[in-house]
């Protein structure tokens, strides 16, 4: 960290000034001065934080704006003065007047520690805002970083607060600060109060204090509170494991669903299934680029447009594949396996030649970024929630298609008894093509979904081909329901094992489990019963 000795005097002066203002307490809101602003922007982190905390207690509106500017990296310093630079506009921090930026002005760099302190300062000042939402946000922000310097503001806010819920949260904040106090009674009171918290930050705080506490009475209070907080947090943890399991399961189900049709119903071992997913993912990428170029305003909606496009692209590829290669090979599984494997290599190389060997970037639209905070220690990412819903919809669609439509009827008929179906006038060759294209199209949908959580590259499909065969075989060949149970089951199992033994071992254990399971029950979870079942 570099120091500017020349500026030291100015800084000292500012710190002193700040302290004076702080002792002046809640007097008339003092305006932000240039030396103060400069002291917060330049020099050693310790001194900057000192100046900032000294000024915060005054809760001056000009300071709030300045802290926001610091957080947004909009402040530059030159010659002992600080300036707010917004695009072309340069403002003097104290007067707010437009000025011109001097030569050689330097950016103010905030490290994590500074950003944390600035964030806490901004939040502390929000506590006094007239807007309830802003106050709530301030409290939420302060939860993990309240310290002694914010106490006067928290006290003031608690005294003024009229909303009961917020008042209670402010009390918790006070307790979080108070538990580190010198005064034993205050510590004891704080420890008891904190039992009402539902935050992971409180657990960390209590654990830390528990180790450091010397008074037996306080220690016991901390321990009791800790047990309560932990009990509440446990729920979030278990729900989290369940959610990640379902999320992985929904992905597995989605990638296996197409295969359940082509392999399960039609008996085609399609090694190019993964590459059909890749085609879906690349179709999403192309749609994204088209939106970016031609419809930048509606960019966030590109995913919706990409869904039918990826389905059609993969379905078309599947239909061509079926017409040109696979239909000559029905009933010859070994040749089909080899031929489709060759096709998968051709498809990968084609994509490499068109888009390059590197991964391409598929961005999440804004509405699929971030997450939904359900519990303080459980955030469900939007993209994963969307994929679960999407998988459910696709499943529903496929189930309806197979059970309710004429095409579904034909597919079932041909699957059960090809000759008989042919005799009653079903064009079995055409049904084969349609069914294969449907399976391929669903693979394309899976690719579109995968592009939102993982990398899109030419070998995207390779990573999923083994998984999808695993799900179909485990679920039982010829059964859609089996695919659903197997996909979700494997997902949850995998995540449970991963939480316990780590990702590498979990993968191995799942494979071992499947090998053993298939040994014991070769027909999978659900076996097709009746006349059509083969050996």
């Amino acid at each position, binding site marked *: 960290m570099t120091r500017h000795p020349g500026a030291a005097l100015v800084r000292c002066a500012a710190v002193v000034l700040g302290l004076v203002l702080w002792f002046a307490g809640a007097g008339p809101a003092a305006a932000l001065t240039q030396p103060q602003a400069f002291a917060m922007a330049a020099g050693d982190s310790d001194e900057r934080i000192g100046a900032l905390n000294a000024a915060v207690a005054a809760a001056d509106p000009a300071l709030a704006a300045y802290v926001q500017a610091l957080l947004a990296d909009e402040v530059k310093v030159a010659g002992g003065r600080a300036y707010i630079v917004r695009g072309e506009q340069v403002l003097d921090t104290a007067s707010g007047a437009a000025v011109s930026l001097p030569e050689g002005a330097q950016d103010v760099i905030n490290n994590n520690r500074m*950003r944390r302190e600035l964030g806490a300062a901004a939040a502390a000042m929000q506590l006094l805002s007239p807007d309830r939402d802003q106050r709530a946000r301030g409290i939420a922000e302060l939860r993990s970083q309240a310290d002694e310097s914010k106490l006067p503001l928290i006290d003031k806010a608690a005294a003024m607060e009229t909303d009961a819920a917020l008042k209670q949260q402010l009390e918790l904040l006070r307790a979080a600060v108070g538990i580190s106090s010198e005064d034993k009674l205050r510590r004891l009171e704080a420890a008891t109060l904190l039992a009402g918290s539902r935050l992971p930050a409180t657990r960390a705080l209590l654990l830390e204090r528990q180790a450091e506490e010397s008074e037996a009475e306080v220690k016991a209070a901390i321990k009791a509170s800790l047990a309560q907080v932990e009990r509440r947090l446990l729920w979030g943890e278990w729900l989290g494991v369940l959610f990640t399991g379902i999320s992985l399961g929904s992905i597995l189900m989605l990638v296996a669903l197409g295969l359940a049709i082509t392999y399960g119903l039609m008996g085609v071992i399609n090694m190019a299934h993964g590459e059909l997913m890749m085609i879906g993912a690349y179709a999403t990428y192309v749609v994204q680029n088209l939106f970016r170029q031609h419809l930048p305003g509606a960019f966030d909606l590109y995913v919706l447009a990409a869904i039918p496009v990826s389905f059609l692209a993969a379905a078309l590829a599947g239909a061509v594949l079926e017409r040109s290669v696979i239909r000559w090979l029905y009933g010859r599984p070994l040749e089909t396996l080899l031929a489709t494997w060759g096709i998968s290599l051709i498809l990968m190389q084609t994509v490499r030649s068109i888009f390059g060997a*590197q*991964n*391409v970037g598929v961005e999440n639209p804004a509405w699929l970024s*971030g997450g939904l905070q359900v519990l303080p220690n459980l955030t469900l990412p939007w993209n994963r929630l969307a994929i679960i819903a999407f998988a459910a919809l696709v499943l529903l669609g496929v189930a309806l298609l197979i059970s309710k439509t004429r095409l579904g009827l034909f597919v079932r008929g041909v699957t059960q008894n090809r000759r008989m179906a042919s005799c009653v006038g079903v064009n079995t060759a055409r049904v084969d093509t349609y069914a294969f294209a449907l399976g391929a199209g669903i693979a394309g949908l899976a690719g579109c979904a995968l592009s939102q959580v993982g*990398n899109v590259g030419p070998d995207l499909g390779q990573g999923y081909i083994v998984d999808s065969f695993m799900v179909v075989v485990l679920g039982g060949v010829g059964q859609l329901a089996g695919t659903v149970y197997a996909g979700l089951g494997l997902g949850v199992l995998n995540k449970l094992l991963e939480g316990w033994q*780590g*990702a590498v071992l979990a993968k191995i254990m799942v494979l071992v489990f499947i090998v053993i399971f298939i040994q014991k029950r070769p027909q999978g979870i659900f076996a097709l019963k009746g006349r059509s079942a083969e050996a």
Partner: protein
Amino acid sequence: MKTTRRQAGQTLTAIALGLATLGYSSFASAQDTIKVGVLHSLSGTMAISETVLKDTVLMAIDEINAKGGVLGKKLEPVVVDPASNWPLFAEKAKQLISQDKVAVTFGCWTSVSRKSVLPVYEETNALLFYPVQYEGEELSKNVFYTGAAPNQQAIPAVEYLMSKDGGSAKRWVLLGTDYVYPRTTNKILRAFLHSKGVADADIMEEYTPFGHADYQTIIAKIKKFAGEGKKTAVVSTINGDSNVPFYKELGNQGLKATDVPVVAFSVGEEELRGVDTKPLVGHLAAWNYFQSIKNPTNDEFIKKWSAYAKAKGIAGHKDRPLTNDPMEATYIGVHMWAQAVNKAKSTDTDKVIAAMAGQTFKAPSGIVSKMDEKNHHLHKSVFIGEIKADGQFNVVWKTPGPVVADPWSDFIPENKGRLNVPESKKVAAK
């Protein structure tokens, strides 16, 4: 099958002939060009990081050729693609050395690929320049390591996070891809943390396979671990394209750098290209170079790269040129090799190795980079950068001056008393 004495004799003769040919290769290739091998994955999981290094080598070669080449001859690059497939690295290296007769190879990123080609370079006494930070525990006379050793990257980064400005971290998550670099680095870091008084209960170590894409559980675990005590920091040695889902998940689950900072050793400007960096502001990386470093040498380096990327139409870089640490290390390596060849007046491996000692080059990181006289590593300054919203890094800390590499880290007990000098003449000893 039994090997008869005659067969053994034949084999020996063949090997002898082969070696003889190799020995004369410098005469045989005495034509208009000197061939230079480029051994970087252009496909597979590592392509995200390595492809651009191939282009950097080509740019440096163009630069040298524009100034008249080396020893009056032009350099001719031979590019191969080992496709993130570790055994294929060794095959391609053999092909470069024995078929293409390259004078030197620039290549490899992962340590597992370097370990795979190492026997090839040592047996044939060829020369490899390795441009990426790595775990140390290796010092071959046939390799020049232009990336950082652990004490030039990992240890300063952890020291920074322990400092007040770094957030006074007390608990540590060591997270990595499951192979030799993360495992060894974490072994060194664990020993280092022990020496600083961190207990084993305050260290969590986690590994994921190459190409892992589902980081939900890992992030949940980190959150839980961070909620169990004092300030926690994450040290990530995740490599390759797994970083994209990792950082996406990190952002989506709302794990902020002000709460739990993540410092990465294999994530630079290039790896963050495909990621929305707004939720990641403040997470850190430790390198010996950042694009955002301001000095005239770096300005020129970025300008050259931008022009080159535009001229060659390099995907991504032609619109948004980025430079990063391994690119800088590659660039220094190519130029230093050319200087050494000019000094040695030969491309003979042993002569070039002798001439490399003490070579200097004005590095874009702002120092005069120097090749150590003995230990085959560069002296490097260490920078800690925080991710900005635009995918660049703010340098928040740096070492006062260049640090000398310590490849045999003293934090591993077996290395006590080991000198940082390659065991000389391995080939002769065989």
